[in-house]
């Protein structure tokens, strides 16, 4: 078993971020519960945030932190409105499965 390096290469952080992003995509595509789909989007946003912070470290500038701060704020707004929509949908349709919300089809 190889010994752990003293410091972590930058690419490991980016790879982790890519992994989390792909997981988010997987959740978004595979899951049928609207709340889980929503959470997968949040996971993707988090993965992108990690990339921002990593590049901020690489460039020695604080701008990446500001971007992820804005992502957080937008995510908060999105969660508030999105969950309100989900609540309304559930009130009217008694379901959270996205496959059953197809009244605009046909």
């Amino acid at each position, binding site marked *: 078993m190889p010994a752990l390096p003293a410091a*972590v290469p930058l690419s490991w952080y980016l790879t982790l971020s890519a992994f989390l992003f*792909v997981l988010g995509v997987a959740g978004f595509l595979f899951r049928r519960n609207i709340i889980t789909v929503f959470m997968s989007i949040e*996971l993707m946003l988090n993965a992108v945030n990690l990339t921002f912070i990593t590049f901020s470290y690489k460039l020695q500038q604080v701008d990446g932190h500001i971007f992820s701060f804005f992502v957080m704020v937008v995510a908060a*707004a999105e969660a508030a409105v999105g969950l309100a929509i989900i609540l309304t949908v559930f009130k009217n349709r008694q379901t959270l499965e996205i496959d059953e919300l197809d009244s605009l089809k046909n």
Partner: protein
Amino acid sequence: MDALLFMIFAAIAAVCGINLVIQKHAISSALSLVGVMAALAALYLLLGGEFIAAAQLVVYAGAIMVLFVFVIMLLNAGVERTTRRRPWAQYAGVPLLLVLFGTVALLVQEISPAGDNVIFGEFTKGTPLDVGRALFTTYLLPFEVTSVLILIAILGAIVLARKEID
């Protein structure tokens, strides 16, 4: 020490992320996401982002996810049902995702030069002071616009929550 800490928190983030996707119950997924966010906060600290790590805990894990858990508890919708999928999607989905991950990972390995290491304490511009200064000088206009966005979101949430749709 750096590598060890990275390994631990990256493993937590990865395992929780996988758990988010494979769990059948929404509340398990929500808690997994909280785990991912907490682990990411620790990774931000390793990268020198003190303020953003705290914001991650306060805003993401402490507020947004509580909202999710709250809604899941309120609706109490139970376990997700597996619905019929198109056969090609069933078999091609996971390999395609692996291809996506492989491509991105390969690209990352290609473009990032070797010997570009993350050393804890090398980046000291992530303090609340620096973030605040950047936020209120260079990024003042976006900041104000986001405050308007938040206001609109509050209004939207209230209208949606109150209105009875027939």
